[in-house]
């Protein structure tokens, strides 16, 4: 009697709804993390006086504190200072900013691997700072780090469950909410875990393939 198949089947649609929210959080969060991280990396690399130091600390601090506590902070404290979003939007912003600290480090590694000669050639062609980043450095820097960024996307997908703590109604929330209505946790939690696996395993495999492809081009 431990596992109730009929019950398990009946909750799958609701859990799939939750999975869809999780995927949405991940997609928008990824967009934020990729763009913001890029900005942070470029600013830090450009040694812009005050901003650079500030972003250094930003990366350090975000990576040194738990996502859950950051989410609580944004959820509870920001409304007090007049910044208010729905839990979903708050969650997406928090996880996006959190991961931007990680992607910034990835981009930095990518930027560092662009040879000095590429910078010098850009100067020799009189490209402006923006043109240099846009046409020469970033295309090369990003290409090499696509797999590493991909790994963080998968990681974000899994970490988005933490946002359930600030009432973002994603996959895990759906599972616990089913639990509170039906008073059973076994099936919803197990199926939620399997759904996470069903997305993250193929994604990880895909990234591995991409990595091999980039390592041995053509």
């Amino acid at each position, binding site marked *: 009697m431990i596992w109730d198949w009929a019950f398990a089947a009946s909750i799958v649609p609701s859990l799939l709804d939750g999975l869809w929210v999780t995927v949405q959080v991940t997609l928008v969060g990824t967009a934020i993390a990729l763009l913001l991280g890029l900005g942070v990396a470029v600013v830090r690399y450009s040694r812009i006086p005050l901003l650079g130091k500030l972003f250094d600390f930003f990366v350090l601090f975000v*990576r040194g504190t738990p996502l*859950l*506590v950051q989410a609580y902070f944004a959820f509870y*404290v920001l409304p007090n200072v007049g910044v208010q979003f729905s839990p979903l939007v708050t969650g997406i912003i928090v996880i996006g900013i959190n991961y931007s600290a990680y992607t910034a480090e990835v981009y930095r590694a990518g930027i560092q691997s662009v040879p000095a000669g590429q910078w010098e050639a850009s100067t020799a062609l009189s490209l402006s700072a923006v043109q240099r980043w846009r046409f020469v450095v970033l295309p090369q820097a990003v290409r090499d780090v696509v797999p590493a960024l991909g790994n963080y996307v998968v990681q974000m997908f899994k970490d988005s469950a933490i946002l359930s703590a600030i009432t973002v109604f994603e996959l895990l929330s759906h*599972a616990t909410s089913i639990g509170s209505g039906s008073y059973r*946790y076994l099936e919803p939690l197990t199926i*939620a*875990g399997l759904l996470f*696996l069903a997305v993250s395993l193929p994604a990880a495999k895909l990234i591995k393939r991409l990595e091999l492809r980039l390592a041995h081009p053509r």
Partner: protein
Amino acid sequence: MSQILPFLPLLLNGLLITLALTAVGVVITVLVAFAAGLCRMSRRRWLSWPAGVFIEIFRGTSMLVQLFWLFFALPFFGVQLVPFAAAVLALGLNEGAYGAEIVRGAITALPRGQREGAIALSLTPYQRMRYVILPQAIPAMIPPFGNVFVDLLKNTSLVSLVTVADLTFRAQMVRATTGATTAVFGTILVLYFVAAYVLSVGMGRLERRMDPGRPELRPTLLQRLFRRGGVVGS
């Protein structure tokens, strides 16, 4: 701020629990990482296959889901862990799965000749591991393990969601009672940050002690802090 002063002992008690979770978690992480990593590399299918499944499952699902499962679902299979045990187990298994890939990576990165040199001396598989492979692989594992440990420390905050009274849990409680939301969360953010910082510095020390070569080429303290390669240990 003054509202939360009476609750400071409670917060410190939570910090203690958080540190205890981290300490026990680190031990379990290392044990699991070596067990799973070494089994994964075994040529025996009945060892490598289960290790592979374990690693994929624990790296493929959310730490929080694992925690909820151990806490609320496992009892139905007759295994009833106290909350602290369920918590450190989830932390240790999850981070251990990442650590397993670190162990495997460091060992496979050794030159093939080391293993062959050891075979040519008739060392047994155990002796090869003990005297030749691990002493060389372990120093290489320290920086990535440092990152895993910082992750572990941060993930201890999740146990607050399954009734373990860690720092985050206590903070929520104090907040609910006093309403001093900003002060409480500000305080614990700083506490976590300091703890993570100290942990990283400690790992940096360990790294230098195990590998005394070329200190001037080492990255600065801040660079070393929170350095991380690909998450999936690749």
